[in-house]
Every structure is written in structure tokens, then in C-alpha cells.
């Protein structure tokens, strides 16, 4: 009991420290890309008289394009999945013997139906590194945005010939985005009863978003400089315009979105055919500062039905199926699913693998269906100490904001 009390006190201290981390720079990281050109879009150099001013002709489209990219990137940053191990014993009343439930040490990112056990406390500390490399299949280091100019003669189209053919000039902005997340998560799970777990995940996130852009003007045929009148380019950068090269972003560190979880194992050892079943409810709270990209800014509620079954005391396939409701933006509501297994290869070593998916029925078009492969191992070197490592590999890099792979390492102790 003293050990558990100490663990809880340590936990409180960590939470306190996590909450006290302040941003080094108060600028909103969330709008880093939107504000690349000063937050007003791209403004061009005014033309000398008697030419009419063209300085704000690309302002709307550049603002819109940057804003869209900004939203695509920032809305796709989320908290990776976490869970706790399942270990220990249950009791077989009929035979009067404990039954080892450590046929495996449990899954890594998905869920099994079995719970931790009454009055047990599982504390896990993980570190996850996410280095985003692709957005909708495009390399984040080499993104291109094309900004179109407004209609000059009011005919409703962009002329490609005649005196107003300069309407078809474009600004191409090449962007290089460096977006990484380092997530330190403290995961605590406590068994209220043999069938009922409660817990929470407290992530402390360091996020780095650095965007660099270079904008250039082209005519409709792709010639640099755009359309000219004589020697004078109609659209141009100059000392009084936005600079063609821009950069922005920074680092933020702080508390992410805290997740509260509870799992109830309502069916266990029913018979040989029916799997163990549990219901999991997760509540993600908007504790992370959305403006600093540390949280999503909304409260999410997830209900997940979990089924698993252990065969031959070492192999446990499992299925998770549920729905996540984003109370802030219903377009982010998602069907969550997972299919996988964990297998106890050695008494102290478990391999876990699974497919993890998330599909947004009313999604915005970015990352509406993402599917990852998760592979990992858990090693139980001594007593109740478990070391875990996992890698999450996107199976479809053309959907959403993706990393090439997401490694996680962690240490776990069950009191």
C-alpha cells in the first residue's frame, strides 16, 4: 500500500511539473503556416502609375491556400493510442487454482478484453517520436501551393489571351515543413474491481513546426516572372511587397490532451467459443493548448467494444471496434477499429502485432481513412517490470499527415 501511495504522490508531482512547463514563445504555433507571409497573404509590389495596382491580387488565394494547408496539418496532429499491460493471475473457482493471465503481456496500442485486476496499479512511462514526412502522400519537405489571382476585367474567367492574359499568372510557393512531436506520456491504470479498470493518460508534448516557403511568379506557360508589359512585369515582388522567402514556426512544450479511460470486462471465460468481451470508454479532455498545437481543443468521447480470446495460453487475437465523437468538430468523428494479436513467445517476451484503423465518415478530405500496422515487443525482465517498444507503420501514406514510422519505447511497472 505504501508503494502505491508513493507511486500516486510521484504521479502528482509529474503532473504538477507537466502543468508548469511554459511556452518559450507565446506566438501561436497553430497559425505558423497561415502567418508565413505576415498573416495577410502575399502582397505584391505596387506597379508604377499609370498602371492600376496589382498588389493585393493574390492576397485572397494565398491566404486561402496557406490557411487550408495550415488546417490540414494542424488538425491531423493527434495523440497516439496508448494502453496498459495485462498481467498477473485470475482465479479459477472450479479448479481452485490461480490461472496465469500472463499468457502474454498484452497488446501495445490496441486493447484486450481482460482487465488489470482489483487493486492493482499499472504505471507506464512512454516516449514516442513522430516525425511527420507526408501530407496526403506529398513530401512535407517539398510541398507546392499554387495561388491564382483575382479576375481583373470582371468577365468571371481568367483570361488566357488578349490584354488580360496576365490574369492567368500564378504564384507558386514551395514549402518545406519540418514537423515533429516528442510525446512523453504517463499512463496510469487502476483496477477498481477484478473486471473494472479506470485510468488516465497524461501526455507532455514537445512539438516543433518550422515552415519555410519560397514564392515565385509564373505566367500561364510556366515562364518565371509572369506576364510583362514591355519590360515591366505586372506581378512582382519588390521592396514594398511581401518577401518571396518566408519562414515561421517554432517549438512548444507543455501538457497535451489528458485522456481518461475506463474499461469494463463484462464477459470472461464464458465458454470455449465466446471471446472475452469488454467495453472501453475514453474521454479526451482539451487540456492541451490548441493554439500552441499541444492539443486539439475539443473534447472527444470514444466507446470501444473489445473482444479477445487466449488460445493455448500464449496466443491472443483481439478485435476492437468503436466510435469516437469529436464534440468540437463532428467532421472529425471517426470509426475506430483494430485487429491483431499478441503472442507470448517466451515466458518473459511477448510479440504484438495489429492493424489499427480510423475512418471518418464525414471527414474533411484529409486523412479520412488511415490505417497503420503496429509491431512491438514487451519484455518482462524482472518481477512486475515490463519494457516495451513498438513501431507504428502507416500502410497508406497517401491519406492524411503521416510519418514514415512512429517508434515508441516505454517502461511499465505493476504494483
Amino acid at each position: 500500500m505504501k508503494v502505491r501511495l508513493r507511486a500516486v504522490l510521484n504521479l502528482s508531482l509529474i503532473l504538477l511539473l507537466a502543468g508548469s512547463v511554459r511556452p518559450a514563445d507565446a506566438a501561436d504555433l497553430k497559425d505558423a503556416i497561415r502567418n508565413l507571409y505576415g498573416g495577410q497573404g502575399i502582397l505584391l509590389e505596387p506597379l508604377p502609375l499609370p498602371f492600376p495596382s496589382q498588389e493585393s491580387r493574390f492576397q485572397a488565394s494565398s491566404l486561402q491556400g496557406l490557411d487550408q494547408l495550415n488546417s490540414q496539418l494542424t488538425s491531423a496532429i493527434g495523440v497516439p493510442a496508448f494502453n496498459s499491460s495485462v498481467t498477473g493471475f485470475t482465479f479459477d473457482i472450479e479448479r481452485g487454482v490461480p490461472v496465469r493471465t500472463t499468457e502474454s503481456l498484452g497488446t501495445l496500442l490496441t486493447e484486450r478484453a481482460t482487465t488489470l485486476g482489483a487493486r492493482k496499479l499499472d504505471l507506464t512511462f512512454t516516449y514516442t517520436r513522430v516525425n511527420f514526412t507526408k501530407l496526403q502522400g506529398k513530401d512535407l519537405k517539398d510541398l507546392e501551393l499554387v495561388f491564382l489571382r483575382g479576375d481583373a476585367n470582371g468577365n468571371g474567367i481568367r483570361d488566357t489571351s488578349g490584354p488580360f492574359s496576365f490574369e492567368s499568372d500564378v504564384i507558386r510557393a514551395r514549402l518545406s515543413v519540418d514537423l515533429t512531436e516528442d510525446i512523453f506520456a504517463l499512463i496510469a491504470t487502476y483496477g477498481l474491481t477484478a473486471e473494472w479498470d479506470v485510468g488516465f493518460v497524461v501526455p507532455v508534448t514537445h512539438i516543433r513546426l518550422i515552415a519555410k516557403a519560397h514564392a515565385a511568379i509564373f505566367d500561364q506557360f510556366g515562364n518565371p516572372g509572369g506576364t510583362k508589359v514591355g519590360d515591366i512585369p505586372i506581378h512582382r515582388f519588390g521592396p514594398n511587397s511581401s518577401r518571396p522567402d518566408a519562414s515561421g514556426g517554432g517549438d512548444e512544450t507543455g501538457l497535451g490532451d489528458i485522456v481518461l479511460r475506463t474499461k469494463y470486462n463484462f464477459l470472461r471465460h464464458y465458454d470455449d467459443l465466446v471471446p472475452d468481451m469488454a467495453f472501453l470508454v475514453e474521454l479526451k479532455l482539451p487540456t492541451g493548448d490548441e493554439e500552441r498545437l499541444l492539443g486539439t481543443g475539443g473534447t472527444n468521447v470514444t466507446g470501444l467494444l473489445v473482444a479477445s480470446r487466449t488460445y493455448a495460453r500464449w496466443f491472443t487475437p483481439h478485435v476492437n471496434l468503436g466510435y469516437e465523437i469529436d464534440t468540437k468538430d463532428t467532421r472529425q468523428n471517426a470509426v475506430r477499429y483494430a485487429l491483431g494479436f499478441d503472442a507470448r513467445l517466451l515466458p518473459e517476451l511477448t510479440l504484438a502485432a495489429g492493424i489499427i484503423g480510423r475512418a471518418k465518415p464525414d471527414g474533411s478530405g484529409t486523412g479520412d481513412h488511415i490505417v497503420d500496422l503496429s509491431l512491438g515487443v514487451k519484455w518482462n525482465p524482472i518481477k512486475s517490470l515490463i519494457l516495451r517498444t513498438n513501431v507504428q507503420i502507416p500502410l497508406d501514406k497517401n491519406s492524411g499527415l503521416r510519418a514514415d514510422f512512429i517508434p515508441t519505447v516505454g517502461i511499465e511497472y505493476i504494483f
Partner: protein
Amino acid sequence: MPILTTRIVRLLSTVWLLGAVASFPLPGEAANIVALKGADVDVYDEALDGFKSVASRAQISEYDMEGDLQRGKRFLARLKSGPKPDLILAIGIWALQVVVEEIRDIPVVFAMVLNPSTVIGQEARNITGASMNVPIEQQIALLKKASPQARRIGVIYDPSKTGFLIKQAERIASDQGVRLLPKAIASPKDSFAALDAMQGEIDALWILPDVTVLAPESVQYMLLFSFRNRIPLLGLSENQARMGALFGLSFGSGRDIGIQAGEIANEILSGRRADEIPFTTARRLRLTVNLKTAGKLGLQVPKEILDRADVVIR
């Protein structure tokens, strides 16, 4: 010479008495008890809580074997090399197994053990405790109450595992005016033929806490037999009742068994010898009644049974 003899006898008596007094805690002195848990299981923790609630004045040190018999043996080896406790509480079958092997001279009370006599030999005079077995009298009485016309109760068993239970059950059944029809099996696959041989011969079927009998295929065949022959099946747990047995009768809770063990420990610490105290069976029971099964069997479960049931599956 007679005077010398008398003095020697007096001296020996005094030494024995001092030894006896020294071996038990004095009034007001907390007894030193070592609680050895076979594994970290909720129900064992409940038993320990129950034990502590009764043996509240004792100083109890806990040790968890974590399911490892060798670990338990190593712990007991260390224990034997130091100051001896007044009593050892062995919680669970694994703890009892290592204690039986290693401890001869310290009183041992067990808790949460099924069929303890299969582990404890006749020569172990320092061991007693609270088993989690359900009293046979109550099991047979329950079947009789549910089906008053039942006169023949079928049971399959492995003689090497539960032969002793069958001997007791035959006597108790006879006292209650019913006949036990036991069929011995040596492996789970024998259960099919054994049950088939009982067809038409029995009025009720009883599942014993016997590892051979509890193989999933055997239990499933017993459930099938019960439905086909429309006879009640008495199972060992709520789980078996949910699977289709008419009744599931098990020990009430780990805490109850722990309390029983604590009461036995108190008797020993008060000076009674362990071999004077018989093993106990579960005092409080947990009954599950499956009314869906009753309907399929065409049985009307008496209100008296339903009133005392802890769980009724409708």
C-alpha cells in the same frame, strides 16, 4: 532414588511447560504470523483481509510467491533459518504445497484451498485450515429440494483426484435417503462413456471439483446430458450455471474463507494443536440458479431456493 526421579520429572515438566509457554504468544503479546500467498489473486487478497479482520492482534508479514513454487521454497528456507513465526498462513494451493514440503515444526493454517487432503499427507500434524470446498451435505440437499423425487444422483470422478470425496458423499447421500451412482474415469475422454452408461439410471447429475472431470469437453457433455435427459445438473460456479447447469454452488467469498482461517489461527494461538482442529468447508455459499435451464428441464424451482439464491439467471 524415588526422590531423584520425582525431581527429574518435575524438572522436565517445568522445562516442557516453559517451552510450551514460550512457543505461544503471551497474553497481550502480538503473535507473529507469516502469510504466504501463492499468487497475487484478488480472492486471495480478500481471504487475507478476512483473516486479518479476525486475527486483528497478530503481527502479519505477507509474502507473495508470484505463482513460483521455487520462489516459495526459497522464502521458506530463509524463514527457517531465522526466528520462527508463531504461525504460517498458507493462502492457496501453491502456498500449501510448498509449506507441506518445507515446514514441519510451525503451525500452519491454510485458506482458499480446494480438496486440501490431496496435498496434505497423514503425517502432517501441524497443518489445518479452511478449505473452499462446498459441504457435500448442502449440495445433495439442494438437489433434493429442487427435485424431491430425485433418488439417484450420478457423478463421474477420477479416483486419484476425488476418490476421498466420493467415499464421504456416498455416506452423506445415504444419510439423506438418496443413492449416489459414481462412475470412475481416468481421463476426460472416458467421461462420455461413463455418462452414457448412466442414461435412465439417474435423476440428477453432480459436477465434482475434480480436474479430470472439469475438462471442457467433459463439462460440455454433462450439460448436454442434463438437457437430453431433462435432469438437473449441479455445477460448481456461477460460470457453470451460466453455461446451462441448473445450479452453481460455490464458496461465498474469499473474505469468508479468510475469516474461517483466522478463527482457526486464533484457536491455535490460544494453545490448541493443529491436529486437533479438522479442516473446515465453506460456511457461507454462493448460489446461482438458472431459470432458463429450469424451464427447459420442466422443473419448478422452489421459492425457498430462489430466495436464498445470490444470482438468478432469468
